[in-house]
């Protein structure tokens, strides 16, 4: 696990590379940390409509020892569903951070707006490549 320097300055890390799959979906690798410290890298779909941080399959959350902290109502398409929520340690190419993670009913992992906050996502549909980096400060 990466430890942040004492002065709270983020270490410089290169952009995180992702890919566009054959269906045109934008995918990024995300690391989740199990309750015993084991790290698992998953490929997650970027969904800019998702207002939260991350969705992982509910069964996976249980299998890595995350305790279910309850549930909430979410809008999925036109349906309202009740999903579990967890507090989990995750990393999206940089320091680990504690985020609110939702339990999904299917086997997909989804990254939402909250996890991308303060970052710059560049998608090149010509080359099929994408990069996530720290937001550039424009003068």
């Amino acid at each position, binding site marked *: 696990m990466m430890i942040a320097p004492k002065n709270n300055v983020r270490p410089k890390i290169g952009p995180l590379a992702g890919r566009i799959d054959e269906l045109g979906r934008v995918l990024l690798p995300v690391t989740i940390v199990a309750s015993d410290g084991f790290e698992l890298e998953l490929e997650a779909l970027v*969904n800019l*409509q*998702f*207002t*939260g*941080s991350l*969705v992982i399959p509910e069964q996976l959350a249980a299998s890595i020892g995350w305790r*279910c*902290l*309850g*549930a*909430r*109502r*979410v*809008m*999925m398409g036109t349906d*309202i569903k*009740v*999903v*579990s*929520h967890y*507090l989990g340690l995750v990393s999206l190419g940089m320091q680990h951070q*504690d*985020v*609110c993670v*939702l339990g999904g009913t299917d086997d997909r992992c*989804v990254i*939402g707006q909250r996890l991308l906050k303060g970052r710059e996502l560049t998608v090149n549909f010509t080359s099929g490549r994408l990069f996530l980096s720290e937001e550039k400060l424009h003068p």
Partner: protein
Amino acid sequence: MATKKVKKLSGDLTKEELDTACFPVFEKLLHELGPRYRDWIVMIEPDSKDYFLGQDDHEVLARARKKHPKGRFFAYRLNENPIVDTI
């Protein structure tokens, strides 16, 4: 033979039962706090009826867990449509 109905604790409730147990508390809070804290997140612990209010769901859930380390909480957004997230 008469049967005694035992109230389940939050740890034994399904997600839907947790919603059912917390929703009356939410309705009361919406009436009391809704005008002032519209669209804030509220997390409710059904056994104690404690509630935790804030604008960041992660921060509110962490605060709720600190007070009730073994508790489970149902989250609502303080408005007439209490959906917290859209996927």
